[in-house]
């Protein structure tokens, strides 16, 4: 179903049925059943935590193969600013962008530039009074999905502006279509992504019917080849592909989006479990003095994305150097978001109440009562051996009819011991009469 397209998928033959992934999933979307992990599609937010923790690399992010480029007449690369953090100081932004042309792209447009436009619009929006504060960034699609399934009360806090990726795709397409007189459908725009969630947001966008992005390539697939291609480009190479200033480049790391807003009334949180903590504070009105929250699913922000290559902390240092350079070049960005109305989402987001036990509240209450009862009888070790992440989630699965109490090895042992006792009792009653 297109409704539930996910980039994060399981390679069953590699899965050994261990419980690493179920314990780390922030929406409890994974179960191990019959010795293999299964992803509950309705719950998955494509954060990629499971990709990171799987010791057997059985979880992967589906991205597009390079061959999809051949379907288009004019091809444009949209590198996420995260890409700049993947290389050391000998690789300037000019070299990286020029290197990308070596993949067969006709042009490169920096997503970092679009990020600056988004920041510009955000600055204007948080100044107005008709938005729910704190405004929560919608740049990270995993976070947006998290809100959609777990924090319905925060939907109205979401910044309903298209992501830098979408804005970049739109600008790139329009620019080329106008300049070269090529019809839009012949122009392919390809995002070079640090994460799985971006793939999902292209294939199954939440905020509008169709994405402007034609395909998504994994940063991992590009990395080594790009290094090769950059070798032939001189270190002091200069080109006009660079269009973003320091703010846009900084977006790749945690705190970058906040920085660009130039206000102290902002908060940056990264790592999906930290994000959940902050969201709980917002829901309970505990977060004061903050107008804007930048929330990124990965540790260190996009630099820690599951499709990146370099350690996120190393990448941060690399990025710092790129930001410094961008400042030195003194790029002043013109105010292109003066009218941000056309950047707004065209479709509102709906709450997906995937956690509820039943559509009928009375029935849900009866199930909850049963759930509590079962949960009280479970050992409370949260060992995961049953295939559910916690004892409570096993109780939930049982109530939903998806698991049995004896999936718990402690419960099973009790039952076996009971059976043994019963057999012993039977043996006593029906002792065979022997002649002796």
């Amino acid at each position, binding site marked *: 179903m297109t409704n539930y397209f996910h980039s994060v998928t399981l390679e069953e033959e590699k899965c050994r049925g261990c419980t690493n992934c179920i314990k780390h999933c922030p929406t409890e979307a994974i179960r191990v059943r019959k010795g293999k992990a299964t992803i509950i599609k309705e719950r998955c937010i494509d954060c990629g935590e499971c990709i990171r923790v799987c010791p057997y690399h059985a979880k992967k992010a589906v991205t597009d193969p390079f061959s999809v480029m051949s379907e288009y007449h004019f091809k444009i690369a949209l590198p996420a600013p995260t890409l700049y953090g993947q290389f050391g100081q000998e690789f300037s932004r000019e070299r990286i962008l020029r290197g990308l042309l070596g993949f067969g792209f006709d042009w490169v447009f920096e997503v970092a530039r679009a990020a600056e436009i988004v920041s510009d619009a955000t600055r204007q929006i948080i100044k107005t009074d008709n938005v729910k504060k704190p405004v929560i960034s919608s740049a990270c699609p995993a976070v947006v999905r998290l809100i959609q399934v777990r924090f319905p009360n925060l939907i109205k806090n979401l910044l309903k502006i298209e992501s830098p990726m979408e804005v970049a795709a739109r600008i790139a397409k329009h620019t080329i279509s106008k300049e070269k007189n090529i019809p839009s459908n012949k122009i392919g725009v390809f995002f070079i992504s640090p994460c799985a969630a971006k793939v999902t947001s292209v294939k199954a966008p939440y905020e509008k019917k169709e994405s402007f992005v034609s395909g998504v390539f994994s940063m991992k697939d590009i990395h080594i080849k790009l290094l090769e291609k950059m070798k032939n480009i001189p270190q002091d190479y200069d080109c006009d592909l660079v269009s973003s200033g320091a703010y846009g480049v900084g977006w790749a790391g945690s705190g970058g989006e906040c920085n660009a807003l130039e206000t102290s009334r902002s908060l940056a949180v990264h790592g999906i479990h930290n994000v959940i903590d902050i969201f709980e504070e917002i829901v309970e009105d505990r977060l004061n003095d903050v107008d804007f929250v930048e929330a990124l699913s990965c540790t260190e922000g996009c630099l820690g994305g599951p499709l990146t290559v370099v350690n996120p902390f190393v990448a941060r240092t690399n990025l710092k150097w790129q930001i410094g350079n961008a400042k030195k070049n003194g790029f002043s960005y013109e105010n292109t978001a003066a009218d941000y109305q056309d950047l707004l989402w065209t479709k509102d987001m709906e709450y997906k109440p995937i956690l509820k036990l*039943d559509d009928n509240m009375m029935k849900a209450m009866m199930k909850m009562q049963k759930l509590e009862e079962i949960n009280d009888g479970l050992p409370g070790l949260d060992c995961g051996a049953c295939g559910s992440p916690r004892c409570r989630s096993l109780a939930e699965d049982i109530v939903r009819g998806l698991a049995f109490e004896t999936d718990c090895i402690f419960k099973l042992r009790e039952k076996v011991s009971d059976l043994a006792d019963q057999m012993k009792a039977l043996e006593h009653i029906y002792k065979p009469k022997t002649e002796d």
Partner: protein
Amino acid sequence: MSSIIKKEYDIPANDFSLAGEASSNVRKLLTQLGVNPTIIKRTSIAMYEAELNVVIHGNGGKARVEIFEDKIEIFVFDEGPGIEDIELAMKEGYSTAPDSIREMGFGAGMGLSNIKRNSDKFVLESEPNKGTRVYITIYLY
């Protein structure tokens, strides 16, 4: 009519890091029941404030939550110093929280009025040296 679901939570004294655990738990519960998000929000704000009062002023206590077919009842109580002048305590901005707590961003004197605002029924019982009891009712529909 008896309640369908009953939960009890311990509220620790003076530990801010644990304040909010009970209300957060209740929020998850209500989400699983499919309760309207606005009602969930009201419940968790009211309960969090009541919890926080027990942490700051009450020397720790307990919260009992009962869910009925049509309402949630929350009973939060402590055996702390109690409130001398309830009417005054209900005033917005009135607070007896020491400076150390105000410096942490708590104790702005909005707690009780915040509970009242978010609940459908709110009863406060207290006497000096006999603790404080807060009864909150929120209707599900």
